């Protein structure tokens, strides 16, 4: 069994919890539908967003250079990192230069991807995640299970227990309002004493050299405007040509993510505050390699809304942690094989290929087609598990020989009807673990056709 399947099996052991998780995410998917249907030009916006991203990818070098030049003119310090290690080193050197001991962060999947927190904590810096969901999982010592709702896998009783232990809330308190208020008070103190703030970036505008960050809580702004040093970390694919393109992406992002018409705060940072310093770190970490893979480069269009997770029947019933990567779900399953084909070879199989992910994607990434394509690459390069490889080999032989096909079809129909259960349901039959084999038809279509064609 591959790693995802193993972890998913653990997840679904608790049936009522699985149902709860499934329904929580489907609820968000339904809100997304309502928000999307409220805009007559929704499909046109998706198409435009996809085209703008295609254009950007085809001129990414020029836009990045334009962005850098404008940002420098604005008084921003721009850094380039080839990989996670260099990104962490750059951030640390900035913090060191400004003698930062206390740091606040708003949500950034890129810094999660680079494992920045651990890197800085090991070097003696206090790192506080300030998005409520991120703070919850940070206190719990877990990675996020969703890119928009990092603590979606936790119940309020668990959060209550955690806050009682860490923030000294009342024992047994589970009211989300009470718990959120406790976090607010706790985080305010952190904001007021922070010496630097780090954020992710939703969009970087090439023409004006500014970055845009979207939050609902206001935590990115609380951090950025109070601390003397602000650092924005972005992947190279976050670039858009002009501010007018924000008109498309801000209309799509929140509606796709949570069903809101827009996030509460859409902040545009162009210049450092008076007496402050503003840094932007531009990170590759495998993205240029993905750009070179024709079949998979469209995955770089992703704006991290999480809609593909909320809709995915596998994600909803296996949880974000089963994927073993910062970005889980369908989009994560097409990004990860490019990073480490062997390690993540199970993920493209964590899908029914139903195509729902591609249908809801606001930038029209052909996610399910890429999942299928990765499966082929994984097979070609010999990373299939032995059982799957053997069964595929035999299936290939049988399906390419009409005589064998007829023969085995007959055997199969006979076997399912006649053989005692232990012969059919055993450790070789993965499919039949939790399912009944289908009722076999009396005859094959070929036989039926031969009988009936004279009629």
């Amino acid at each position, binding site marked *: 069994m591959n790693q995802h399947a193993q972890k998913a099996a653990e997840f679904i052991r608790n049936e009522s919890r699985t149902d709860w998780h499934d329904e929580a995410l489907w609820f968000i998917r339904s809100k997304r539908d309502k928000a999307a249907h409220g805009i007559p030009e929704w499909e046109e916006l998706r198409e435009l967003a996809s085209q703008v991203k295609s254009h950007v990818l085809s001129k990414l070098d020029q836009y990045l250079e334009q962005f850098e030049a404008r940002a420098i003119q604005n008084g921003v310090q721009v850094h380039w990192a080839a990989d996670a290690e260099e990104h962490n080193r750059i951030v640390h050197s900035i913090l060191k230069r400004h003698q930062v001991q206390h740091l606040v962060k708003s949500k950034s999947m890129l810094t999660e991807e680079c494992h920045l927190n651990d890197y800085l904590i090991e070097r003696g810096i206090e790192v506080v995640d300030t998005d409520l969901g991120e703070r919850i999982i940070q206190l719990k010592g877990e990675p996020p299970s969703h890119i928009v709702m990092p603590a979606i896998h936790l119940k309020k009783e668990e959060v209550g227990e955690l806050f009682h232990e860490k923030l000294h809330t009342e024992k047994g308190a589970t009211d*989300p309002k009470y718990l959120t208020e406790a976090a607010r008070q706790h985080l305010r103190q952190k904001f007021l004493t922070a010496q630097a703030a780090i954020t992710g970036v939703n969009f970087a505008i090439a023409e004006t050299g500014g970055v845009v960050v979207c939050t609902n809580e206001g935590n990115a*702004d609380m951090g950025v405007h109070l601390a003397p040093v602000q650092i924005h970390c972005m992947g190279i694919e976050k670039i858009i040509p002009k501010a007018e393109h924000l008109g498309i992406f801000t209309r799509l992002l929140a509606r796709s993510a949570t069903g809101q018409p827009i996030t509460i705060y859409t902040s545009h940072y162009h210049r450092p505050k008076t007496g402050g310093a503003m840094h932007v770190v531009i990170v590759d970490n495998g993205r240029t390699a993905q750009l070179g893979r024709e079949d998979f480069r469209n995955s770089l269009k992703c704006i991290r809304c999480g809609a593909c997770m909320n809709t995915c029947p596998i994600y909803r019933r296996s949880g974000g942690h089963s994927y073993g990567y910062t970005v889980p779900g369908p989009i994560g399953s097409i990004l990860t094989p490019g990073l480490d084909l062997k390690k993540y070879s199970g993920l493209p199989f964590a899908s029914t290929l139903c195509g729902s992910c591609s249908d809801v994607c606001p930038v029209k990434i052909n996610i399910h087609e890429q999942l299928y394509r990765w499966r082929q690459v994984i097979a070609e390069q010999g990373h299939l598990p032995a059982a799957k490889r053997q069964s595929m080999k035999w299936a290939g032989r049988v399906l390419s020989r009409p005589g064998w096909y007829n023969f085995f079809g007959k055997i199969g129909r006979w076997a399912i009807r006649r053989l005692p259960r232990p012969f059919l349901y055993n450790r070789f039959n993965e499919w039949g673990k939790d399912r009944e084999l289908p009722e076999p038809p009396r005859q094959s279509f070929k036989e039926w056709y031969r009988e009936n064609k004279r009629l």
Partner: protein
Amino acid sequence: MSKSKIIAAIQKNKPAEVLLPSIPSFETGNAKPFDAFVATAEAGGSQVFRISDSPGLNTVINTLFPEAVNIASPLPTVRSTIDLEKIQSTTDLESVDVAVIKGQLGVAENGAVWVTEADCGQRVLPFITQHLIILLDPADIVHNMQEAYQRIPVDATGFGLFIAGPSKTADIEQSLVIGAQGARSLTIFLEASQ
């Protein structure tokens, strides 16, 4: 060093040029975005008042927030208790109960208001305050984000943003809680400028 490496890798790996599509303005034909703005702003958790025939801004503020001790605003018409130009450190703003700022543009499709640092006095003001009031001229309401970005020079100031309601979160079991890290409420006063 890494820059040239990244740029070279992009040049090697990027696809053939794809043209940039032109963006239509998606005119709604709805001549009055005003009603739509009020509806979406309220749906997003904002309170909206029309104060054209009101007893005056300061009276309304006192009525809405009778317990407010510290009021901060860069607007001369607001009776502030804190002088934004004289504060020593932005962390001093932690005690602000109500902040009043001017909004430049409202967006009907999502109830968002564009605000710049020039309107805030201090960048952190609209977030650190417990309650936020934005004054908006109804004539400055546009239909959608395309129209909004056509009107806004985003880099005219060092910091600008759209605010679309009170700070909120649903990170604990998807329960909506108003008042996460930023302002606990957003009140929009619609008042025509003279």
